[in-house]
């Protein structure tokens, strides 16, 4: 059996890569892709803990399913916002969206 900590380390690596993507990319769509990667890392943790602590209680999988639904909702609204911003400002580069900056 693979040790639990390997899953946690893999998940930490994926989460950090996703965080780097969110902080360093300038394209709004690439930032959303990084957020998806972070959601996935969290889900790996949930399912790994479910398997290694008590597989007869399905809490971890239920949480993972709810995270799926929340991720789908987040992507739908996020991409709608990107489209709306592109219509008004003709850009998806987040550096150029400085309307609130003074």
């Amino acid at each position, binding site marked *: 059996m693979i040790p639990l900590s390997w899953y946690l380390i893999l998940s930490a690596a994926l989460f950090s890569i996703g965080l780097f993507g969110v902080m360093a990319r300038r394209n709004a769509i690439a930032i959303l892709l990084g957020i998806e990667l972070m959601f*996935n890392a969290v889900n790996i943790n949930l399912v790994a803990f479910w398997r290694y602590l008590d597989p007869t209680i399905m809490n971890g999988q239920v949480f993972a399913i709810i995270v799926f639904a929340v991720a789908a909702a987040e992507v739908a*609204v996020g991409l709608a916002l990107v489209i709306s911003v592109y219509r008004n400002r003709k850009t998806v580069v987040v550096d150029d969206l400085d309307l609130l900056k003074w």
Partner: protein
Amino acid sequence: MSPELILFLVLSLVAIAAAIGMLISPNPVYSALFLVINFSTVAVFYLILGAPFIAMAQITIYAGAIMVLFLFVIMLLGAEKLAPGKVLPYQKPLAIGLAIVLMVESVYAVLARNPSDAEIIVPTEAANSIDAMRDLGIMLFSDYLLPFEVTSILLLVAMIGAIVLTKRAKGEQE
């Protein structure tokens, strides 16, 4: 080394390589396709862990629906060419530093935790069965009924929000 261990190591390499490929490819279409590879490998991790329903949901929802939505928007906006703009000079080094700090910190927290791996008694009964799936359904509709219903309202709100945000006002021209 057991076959399971080799499978795990190869899959983690593919997953991390795909994630890094997503970051460094300048074209968002390639980024999205790299992320599909990553999601597929994560689905195999769920299969190794004995959660086939989550694995299939990962393939259909993430690799299927969400990434198709992403590709649609990328191609709709023609966003593959990024207009040059003003760039913060310290943004990338700062992002690398913060991500590495988070990575080191969480790996340290995992390795230094108590109890360690040797002390955890891993339940050995086969989780990969129809029974587990039935338990999942029963739990979703009994103990977690309220969160489940709230999730459905959240999805409805997201759907309406997406339609309202992308709708053109009457008479507005492209």
